[in-house]
Protein backbone atom coordinates (compact mmCIF):
# COMPACT_ATOMS: atom_id res chain seq x y z
CA UNK A 1 0.00 0.00 0.00
CA UNK A 2 1.50 3.27 -1.11
CA UNK A 3 0.14 5.07 1.89
CA UNK A 4 2.21 3.23 4.41
CA UNK A 5 5.35 3.90 2.39
CA UNK A 6 4.55 7.55 2.42
CA UNK A 7 3.96 7.48 6.12
CA UNK A 8 7.20 5.67 6.68
CA UNK A 9 9.15 8.16 4.58
CA UNK A 10 7.52 11.19 6.02
CA UNK A 11 7.93 9.85 9.48
CA UNK A 12 11.64 9.42 8.92
CA UNK A 13 11.88 12.80 7.32
CA UNK A 14 9.96 14.46 10.10
CA UNK A 15 12.07 12.80 12.68
CA UNK A 16 15.24 13.95 10.99
CA UNK A 17 13.99 17.50 10.86
CA UNK A 18 12.93 17.42 14.46
CA UNK A 19 16.30 16.17 15.56
CA UNK A 20 18.11 18.77 13.49
CA UNK A 21 16.07 21.52 15.06
CA UNK A 22 16.52 20.04 18.49
CA UNK A 23 20.27 20.01 18.17
CA UNK A 24 20.28 23.51 16.84
CA UNK A 25 18.14 24.80 19.69
CA UNK A 26 20.22 22.97 22.23
CA UNK A 27 23.43 24.18 20.69
CA UNK A 28 22.25 27.74 21.11
CA UNK A 29 21.80 27.10 24.79
CA UNK A 30 25.19 25.47 25.06
CA UNK A 31 26.83 28.50 23.55
CA UNK A 32 25.48 30.81 26.18
CA UNK A 33 28.01 31.98 28.65
CA UNK A 34 27.97 30.16 31.93
CA UNK A 35 27.28 32.58 34.75
CA UNK A 36 30.27 33.28 36.97
CA UNK A 37 28.24 32.37 39.99
CA UNK A 38 28.51 28.69 39.15
CA UNK A 39 32.28 28.78 39.14
CA UNK A 40 32.25 30.92 42.24
CA UNK A 41 30.06 28.37 43.93
CA UNK A 42 32.46 25.61 42.98
CA UNK A 43 35.37 27.66 44.31
CA UNK A 44 33.51 28.10 47.56
CA UNK A 45 32.83 24.41 47.86
CA UNK A 46 36.43 23.67 47.09
CA UNK A 47 37.55 26.21 49.64
CA UNK A 48 35.41 24.65 52.34
CA UNK A 49 36.92 21.31 51.63
CA UNK A 50 40.53 22.40 51.87
CA UNK A 51 39.94 24.41 55.01
CA UNK A 52 38.53 21.35 56.74
Amino acid at each position, binding site marked *: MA*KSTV*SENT*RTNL*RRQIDENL*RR*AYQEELEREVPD*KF*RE*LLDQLRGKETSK
Partner: protein
Amino acid sequence: MTSHHPRSRPGSRYAPPQVAADGSVEDPRTALTSHLQSLRAFAISLTRDATSADDLVQDTIVKAWTNLDKFQPGTNLKAWLFTILRNTFYSDRRKNRREVQDSDGVHAAGLVEKPAHDGRLAFSEFTRAFEKLSPEHREVLVLVGAEGFSYEEAAQTMGVAKGTVKSRANRARARLAELMGMAEGEEVLSATGAETLAVLGRAAVPAA
Protein backbone atom coordinates in the same frame (compact mmCIF):
# COMPACT_ATOMS: atom_id res chain seq x y z
CA MET B 1 10.59 1.10 16.59
CA THR B 2 11.26 -0.71 13.37
CA SER B 3 13.72 1.52 11.60
CA HIS B 4 16.99 1.67 13.33
CA HIS B 5 17.82 5.13 14.36
CA PRO B 6 21.50 5.70 13.85
CA ARG B 7 22.90 6.83 17.14
CA SER B 8 23.49 10.35 16.18
CA ARG B 9 25.96 11.34 18.75
CA PRO B 10 26.48 14.97 17.99
CA GLY B 11 29.86 15.89 16.65
CA SER B 12 32.56 17.19 18.90
CA ARG B 13 31.06 20.59 18.43
CA TYR B 14 28.22 19.49 20.64
CA ALA B 15 29.82 17.20 23.11
CA PRO B 16 32.19 18.41 25.74
CA PRO B 17 35.14 16.13 26.27
CA GLN B 18 33.92 12.86 27.69
CA VAL B 19 35.21 11.96 31.04
CA ALA B 20 37.12 8.76 31.23
CA ALA B 21 36.78 8.01 27.54
CA ASP B 22 40.00 6.08 27.64
CA GLY B 23 39.35 4.60 31.01
CA SER B 24 41.46 7.12 32.78
CA VAL B 25 39.70 8.55 35.73
CA GLU B 26 39.54 12.24 36.00
CA ASP B 27 38.90 13.84 39.34
CA PRO B 28 35.15 14.48 39.27
CA ARG B 29 35.71 17.66 41.24
CA THR B 30 37.64 19.05 38.33
CA ALA B 31 35.53 17.43 35.65
CA LEU B 32 32.37 18.91 37.07
CA THR B 33 33.39 22.29 35.74
CA SER B 34 33.37 21.03 32.18
CA HIS B 35 29.73 20.06 32.45
CA LEU B 36 28.37 23.38 33.61
CA GLN B 37 27.36 24.36 30.12
CA SER B 38 25.40 21.19 29.51
CA LEU B 39 23.82 21.31 32.92
CA ARG B 40 22.61 24.78 32.24
CA ALA B 41 21.28 23.93 28.80
CA PHE B 42 19.47 20.91 30.19
CA ALA B 43 18.09 22.99 33.06
CA ILE B 44 16.79 25.58 30.63
CA SER B 45 15.11 22.96 28.54
CA LEU B 46 13.30 21.71 31.63
CA THR B 47 12.42 25.01 33.27
CA ARG B 48 12.14 27.23 30.20
CA ASP B 49 13.21 30.05 32.41
CA ALA B 50 16.73 31.35 32.99
CA THR B 51 16.28 32.23 36.64
CA SER B 52 14.82 28.90 37.65
CA ALA B 53 17.41 27.17 35.52
CA ASP B 54 20.22 28.91 37.36
CA ASP B 55 18.75 27.97 40.73
CA LEU B 56 18.40 24.42 39.56
CA VAL B 57 22.01 24.26 38.40
CA GLN B 58 23.22 25.71 41.69
CA ASP B 59 21.25 23.15 43.67
CA THR B 60 22.62 20.45 41.43
CA ILE B 61 26.19 21.57 41.95
CA VAL B 62 25.80 21.58 45.72
CA LYS B 63 24.09 18.19 45.78
CA ALA B 64 26.64 16.71 43.43
CA TRP B 65 29.50 18.05 45.48
CA THR B 66 28.17 16.72 48.76
CA ASN B 67 27.43 13.33 47.21
CA LEU B 68 30.56 12.89 45.17
CA ASP B 69 31.57 9.92 47.26
CA LYS B 70 28.58 8.13 45.75
CA PHE B 71 29.75 8.72 42.24
CA GLN B 72 31.47 5.70 40.78
CA PRO B 73 34.70 6.84 39.20
CA GLY B 74 34.96 5.90 35.56
CA THR B 75 31.23 5.97 34.97
CA ASN B 76 29.46 8.71 33.10
CA LEU B 77 29.74 11.82 35.23
CA LYS B 78 27.55 13.86 32.95
CA ALA B 79 24.70 11.35 33.15
CA TRP B 80 25.11 11.27 36.91
CA LEU B 81 24.88 15.06 37.11
CA PHE B 82 21.90 15.12 34.78
CA THR B 83 20.17 12.61 37.02
CA ILE B 84 20.63 14.84 40.04
CA LEU B 85 19.42 17.83 38.10
CA ARG B 86 16.25 16.27 36.76
CA ASN B 87 15.39 14.60 40.06
CA THR B 88 15.74 17.96 41.76
CA PHE B 89 13.61 19.57 39.11
CA TYR B 90 10.77 17.07 39.44
CA SER B 91 10.80 17.06 43.20
CA ASP B 92 10.75 20.87 43.35
CA ARG B 93 7.93 20.77 40.92
CA ARG B 94 5.96 18.39 43.08
CA LYS B 95 6.56 20.69 46.04
CA ASN B 96 5.15 23.76 44.40
CA ARG B 97 2.41 22.23 42.40
CA ARG B 98 1.23 25.56 41.15
CA GLU B 99 3.20 25.42 38.01
CA VAL B 100 4.04 28.53 36.10
CA GLN B 101 3.45 27.01 32.74
CA ASP B 102 2.64 30.23 31.08
CA SER B 103 5.25 32.63 32.36
CA ASP B 104 6.01 33.95 28.91
CA GLY B 105 2.56 33.68 27.54
CA VAL B 106 4.01 31.13 25.18
CA HIS B 107 1.23 28.84 26.03
CA ALA B 108 -1.32 31.12 24.52
CA ALA B 109 -4.19 29.25 23.08
CA GLY B 110 -4.55 27.57 19.79
CA LEU B 111 -1.51 28.45 17.86
CA VAL B 112 -1.50 25.71 15.34
CA GLU B 113 0.29 27.27 12.49
CA LYS B 114 0.75 25.72 9.15
CA PRO B 115 4.30 24.82 8.30
CA ALA B 116 6.12 26.54 5.51
CA HIS B 117 4.99 25.05 2.28
CA ASP B 118 8.21 23.41 1.42
CA GLY B 119 7.49 21.14 4.33
CA ARG B 120 10.55 22.22 6.27
CA LEU B 121 10.02 23.07 9.83
CA ALA B 122 10.79 26.68 10.44
CA PHE B 123 13.06 26.95 13.41
CA SER B 124 10.88 29.46 15.21
CA GLU B 125 7.87 27.22 14.84
CA PHE B 126 9.90 24.42 16.19
CA THR B 127 11.03 26.25 19.29
CA ARG B 128 7.55 27.50 20.02
CA ALA B 129 6.15 24.03 19.76
CA PHE B 130 8.97 22.63 21.85
CA GLU B 131 8.17 25.00 24.69
CA LYS B 132 4.68 23.64 24.84
CA LEU B 133 5.72 20.08 25.39
CA SER B 134 5.53 18.63 28.85
CA PRO B 135 8.82 18.64 30.73
CA GLU B 136 8.93 14.86 30.40
CA HIS B 137 8.76 15.17 26.65
CA ARG B 138 11.32 17.94 26.50
CA GLU B 139 13.57 15.93 28.71
CA VAL B 140 13.54 12.80 26.62
CA LEU B 141 14.07 14.73 23.40
CA VAL B 142 16.98 16.67 24.80
CA LEU B 143 18.69 13.61 26.21
CA VAL B 144 18.18 11.35 23.23
CA GLY B 145 17.94 13.82 20.39
CA ALA B 146 20.22 16.67 21.38
CA GLU B 147 22.66 15.32 23.94
CA GLY B 148 23.02 12.04 22.11
CA PHE B 149 22.54 9.87 25.19
CA SER B 150 22.03 6.22 24.35
CA TYR B 151 18.64 4.80 25.29
CA GLU B 152 20.47 3.04 28.06
CA GLU B 153 21.97 6.21 29.46
CA ALA B 154 18.73 8.10 29.10
CA ALA B 155 16.87 5.30 30.85
CA GLN B 156 19.26 5.43 33.77
CA THR B 157 19.12 9.17 33.96
CA MET B 158 15.35 9.23 33.86
CA GLY B 159 14.93 6.27 36.14
CA VAL B 160 12.71 4.38 33.72
CA ALA B 161 13.00 1.33 31.48
CA LYS B 162 14.72 1.55 28.14
CA GLY B 163 11.47 0.78 26.34
CA THR B 164 9.83 3.68 28.09
CA VAL B 165 12.51 6.02 26.80
CA LYS B 166 11.87 4.87 23.25
CA SER B 167 8.13 5.12 23.43
CA ARG B 168 8.24 8.44 25.22
CA ALA B 169 10.63 9.83 22.62
CA ASN B 170 8.28 8.70 19.87
CA ARG B 171 5.31 10.22 21.57
CA ALA B 172 7.21 13.44 22.15
CA ARG B 173 8.08 13.69 18.46
CA ALA B 174 4.51 12.97 17.49
CA ARG B 175 3.27 15.62 19.89
CA LEU B 176 5.74 18.12 18.49
CA ALA B 177 4.52 17.39 14.99
CA GLU B 178 0.99 17.84 16.15
CA LEU B 179 1.78 21.16 17.81
CA MET B 180 3.39 22.36 14.64
CA GLY B 181 0.29 21.45 12.78
CA MET B 182 2.02 18.92 10.73
CA ALA B 183 1.95 15.25 10.53
CA GLU B 184 4.47 15.92 7.82
CA GLY B 185 3.30 16.34 4.30
CA GLU B 186 0.01 18.08 4.49
CA GLU B 187 -1.57 15.92 1.90
CA VAL B 188 -0.84 12.97 4.06
CA LEU B 189 -2.29 14.79 6.97
CA SER B 190 -5.46 15.83 5.25
CA ALA B 191 -6.03 12.45 3.72
CA THR B 192 -5.30 10.33 6.69
CA GLY B 193 -4.54 12.67 9.49
CA ALA B 194 -5.41 10.47 12.36
CA GLU B 195 -3.71 7.46 10.91
CA THR B 196 -0.55 9.33 10.19
CA LEU B 197 -0.38 10.57 13.71
CA ALA B 198 -1.08 7.11 14.91
CA VAL B 199 1.92 5.91 12.97
CA LEU B 200 4.07 8.71 14.25
CA GLY B 201 2.95 7.95 17.71
CA ARG B 202 3.09 4.24 17.45
CA ALA B 203 4.47 4.38 20.90
CA ALA B 204 0.86 4.78 21.83
CA VAL B 205 1.39 1.61 23.77
CA PRO B 206 1.15 2.88 27.29
CA ALA B 207 4.61 2.99 28.69
CA ALA B 208 5.04 1.58 32.13
